[in-house]
C-alpha cells in the first residue's frame, strides 16, 4: 500500500489505548517531537513505549510521560540529567520499566521488521538482565535468547521524504528510525519536507517506501 501524506492528528488516530508505540530518538536527536505532541493531544492512554531513553526535559516523550499516558517503557538508558519526569514516575511506582541493553533493544526491533522471531546474543550473559532467560553455547560462546518485539505504531523523525514515501535521515538523528519503521504494523515518519519523486538519489535512500505507511510534513528541523 502506498504511503499516505496526512496530518499528524490523522496519523496518530492509528494509536489506541493500550497500543505499543516505538519512538525514534537518542536523547532529543531524532525524537519525533511533532508526532509526539499529536499523541499527547489525542489523550490515548495505557501505552507501552519503546525508546532508547525515557524523556528529556519537559518536551516530547517527557511530556507524554508527564501526561500519564504511558503504562510501561522498554528502554536502555532511562537515567539522564534531565529525566526528572520519568525518575519521579519510576520512584513512585507509576510506570513499569523493562531495561534492555541498547544493542539487544535495536536487534529485537530489527528482528521484528525482518520476520525473525528470536535470536541468541552474547550481550548480557552472566548479568542480572539475563536472569530467567535461556542461555545456549553456540560456537563456544554463551549466548542468551532474546525475542523480537511487536510494535503497533512507529513514530519516526526523518529528514526528507519523496512523494513515493522513500525517506532519508540526517546525521545521528537516524539512530532507531529505520528499524522502527520496518518493525511496526503502521509507520509514520515526520519529515521537514517532501520533494518530488525522483529528487532523492535511489542509492541514498535509507528507508524505502515499503516500510512507510504515512508521511507527515512538519517543516521542523531539529538540527542547525
Amino acid at each position, binding site marked *: 500500500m502506498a504511503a499516505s501524506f496526512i496530518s499528524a492528528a490523522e496519523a496518530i488516530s492509528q494509536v489506541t489505548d493500550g497500543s505499543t508505540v516505538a519512538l525514534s530518538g537518542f536523547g532529543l536527536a531524532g525524537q519525533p517531537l511533532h508526532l509526539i505532541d499529536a499523541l499527547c493531544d489525542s489523550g490515548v492512554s495505557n501505552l507501552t513505549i519503546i525508546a532508547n531513553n525515557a524523556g528529556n526535559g519537559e518536551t516530547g516523550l517527557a511530556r507524554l510521560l508527564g501526561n500519564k499516558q504511558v503504562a510501561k517503557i522498554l528502554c536502555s538508558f532511562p537515567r539522564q540529567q534531565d529525566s526528572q519526569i520519568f525518575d519521579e514516575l519510576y520512584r513512585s511506582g507509576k510506570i513499569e*520499566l523493562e531495561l534492555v541493553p541498547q544493542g539487544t533493544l535495536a536487534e529485537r526491533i530489527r528482528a521484528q521488521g525482518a520476520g525473525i522471531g528470536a535470536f541468541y546474543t552474547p550481550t548480557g550473559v552472566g548479568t542480572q*538482565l539475563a536472569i530467567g532467560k535461556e542461555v545456549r553455547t553456540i560456537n563456544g560462546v554463551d549466548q542468551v535468547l532474546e525475542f523480537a518485539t511487536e510494535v503497533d505504531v512507529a513514530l519516526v523523525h526523518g529528514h526528507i521524504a519523496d512523494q513515493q514515501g522513500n525517506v532519508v535521515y540526517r546525521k*545521528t538523528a537516524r539512530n532507531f528510525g529505520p528499524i522502527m519503521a520496518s518493525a511496526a504494523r503502521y509507520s509514520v515518519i515526520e519529515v521537514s519536507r517532501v520533494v518530488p519523486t525522483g529528487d532523492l538519489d535511489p542509492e541514498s535512500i535509507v528507508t524505502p517506501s515499503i516500510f512507510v505507511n504515512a508521511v507527515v510534513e512538519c517543516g521542523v528541523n531539529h*538540527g542547525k
Partner: protein
Amino acid sequence: MASEPLTKSEIAKLVANDIPSGSYVNLGIGLPTLVSNFITPDSDIILHTENGMLGMGPEALGDEIDLELINAGKIPVTELLGASYFHQADSFAMIRGGHIDICVLGAFQVSLAGDLANWHAGDPNDIPSVGGAMDLASGAAKMFVMMTLFDKSGKSKLIKECTAPLTAVKCVNRIYSDMAIIEISAGGIEVLEVFGISEGELLDRIGMN
C-alpha cells in the same frame, strides 16, 4: 616508577598512545571521553559512537553545534572526512560482531578474572540504566578500562569478585589507572607499570599479597 599518581589527562594520554594506528575505537561516556583529546588526525584512529557514526571528530563549539550530530553522551560533536552514519542495529552489529578493535570504558569495579561492573552502582534507589555498556563489554575485540584504582574511601576497585551488578564476565583486557597499568589474562593479573606507589604496596592494597 613515576613519583606521583597520574592525573586523568595523563591516564588518557597513555591510553591514546597504546591504540595502534588504523584502529576502530569506541570511547565510553565519562572518563574515556578524555582519550579523544590525545587522538590527532595523523594518528589515523577512527572513532565509533554507538548512536550511529564512524569518523567522529572533536566536540562541536559555537557555530559548529548541530543538535542532530551528537555523541553517546549526547554532547554535540563534529564529523571528520570519511565519516559515515548508520542505524542502531548496524551500529551494534559493529560492536557485537567484533569489528570494533578497542573499546575504552569506565568502571565501578573490575574483578581479578576481568569481570566488569560499570552500569549499576548497586544502590536499589538508583534508576538502572545500561545503554550500550553490556554490548560493548562483550563485543569489542579488546576492552580497556580507565578508572581510578581506589575509591574515595581507599578501597580497591580491582577486587577478587565484583559486588556491584556485572556488565559482562571476563571481558577486561587491561586497566589504565592513576596508580598502575594492569594486564588481565587467563593466567591472572600482571602489573605493567606503577605510578607513585611501589608494586609491592600496590599488590598489598588490592589484597594480592
